[in-house]
């Protein structure tokens, strides 16, 4: 379980925090969507959840504590975080190591860094590629992949680390519908194994299909934290600059014309 207990975070060189007293809990197997306008603090929250902020980025937690399974994470070495919380960003080009000659080696980099045996590394890489159905990319040069393929390889690299929690910051930003579907399936499969997932995403239709809960941020504060169906229907989302899912907009349009949205069912 990943817990934020009243966490405020300030970047180095900034006078005011970017996140304000965040209370948030991710239980094992739960998929939590994170929405909000640009600059709402979604990416910062992802960095703090993964330990990269303040661990690598710098800055400071000005209040509160991030806990994993009850253990306060302040001062934990970054390489220990890697097995507890994985994080993926939106641009695959900057997440690929740039030093491997094939997709297989790229996915193997993390497990190798963990000091795993060659056999276990290969086993994890095979499993991660199978989950995302990217076995056909195994021999390809990572630098030559398309944006969507690259993102799938990045996610496979995270899966191969087998973290208990996974944070994805706009994982489908560069994916086509098929790639988005594969990532969605992988997220569901991971949740079924007990992994807790936090997904910052603008595609609310995807969150609608995947998430058990949705959290909305505004100005670094949690303004909505509710079950997905309820949160994504909340009219405040529009004011926050978040597009609600198509089903919600359609139902609203039907109601506006005096029709019963139940006809959609």
């Amino acid at each position, binding site marked *: 379980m990943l817990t934020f207990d009243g966490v405020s975070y300030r970047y180095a060189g900034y006078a005011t925090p970017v996140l304000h007293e965040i209370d948030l809990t991710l239980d094992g197997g739960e998929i939590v969507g994170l929405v909000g306008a640009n600059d709402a603090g979604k990416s910062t929250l992802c*960095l703090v959840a993964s330990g*990269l902020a303040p661990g690598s980025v710098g800055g400071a937690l000005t209040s509160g504590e991030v806990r994993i399974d009850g253990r306060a994470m302040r001062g934990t070495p970054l390489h220990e975080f890697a097995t507890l919380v994985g994080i993926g960003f939106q641009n695959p080009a900057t997440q690929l190591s740039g030093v491997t000659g094939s997709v297989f080696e790229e996915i193997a980099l993390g497990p190798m860094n963990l000091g*795993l045996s060659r056999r276990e590394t290969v086993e994890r890489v095979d499993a991660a590629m199978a989950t995302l159905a990217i076995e056909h990319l195994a021999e390809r040069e990572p630098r030559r992949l398309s944006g969507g393929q690259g993102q799938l390889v990045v996610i496979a690299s995270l899966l191969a680390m087998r973290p208990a929690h996974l944070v994805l910051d706009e994982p489908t930003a560069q994916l086509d519908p098929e790639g988005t579907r594969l990532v969605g399936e992988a997220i569901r499969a991971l949740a079924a194994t007990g992994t807790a997932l936090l997904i910052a995403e603008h595609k609310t239709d995807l969150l609608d299909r995947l998430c058990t809960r949705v959290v909305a941020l505004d100005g670094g504060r949690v303004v909505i934290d509710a079950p997905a169906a309820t949160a994504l229907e909340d009219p405040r989302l529009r004011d926050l600059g978040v597009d609600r899912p198509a089903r919600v907009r359609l139902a609203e349009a039907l109601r506006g014309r005096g029709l019963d949205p139940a006809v959609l069912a």
Partner: protein
Amino acid sequence: MLALAVSARVLPQLLRASVLLSLPIAISVVLVSVFTRAGTTVLFTIGPFDATLEGVEFAAQTLVRLFAISTSIGLFVLATDPRAFVLDLERRGVSPRFAFVAVASIEAVPTLVERAATISESQRARGLDTEGGLRTRLRGLLPIVGPVILTSLTDVEERSLALESRAFSRPGRRHLLWSMPDRTAERVLRFVLIGLLIALIAARVAGVDF
């Protein structure tokens, strides 16, 4: 060495690279040695400068050495996959961090070239003139070099975060996925070459002149 280049099928590239690399130094060596080295046999005279036989001999010796050095380096670069080389170093105990930095530095070159080309095309699409005289080309350089450097720095930051999330900073050895094949013939050749090198140095120290 040329035989090795033939067996690695890189002889034409090697000769071209070696000549290109050595040429600037070779020209200055020839000019300085031939015309300024004192000697008793004057071959011909240009103005106040005498070209001596001793100067030509010295220039020829230096050129041979220069060519030997440039072909050695060239052969290594052309015949060795940098990733394979650095992974093998890591297998032999070199720190993974050093291995990463070494490969990343080599691999960064084509990435930078590709990025510069992309930025150059986008700037041209926005009306930047990058062709024509020297002044025009120099003026067009800054809008290309600036973004290349800035985007590279941003990339480095993001890449370091991504690597941290894959336990890059974990101390300790890694189990590599594969190791370089090291055939008996190659091992024997290595020992012979090292032995030969030691023998040559010893002979030189003992005063033997080749």
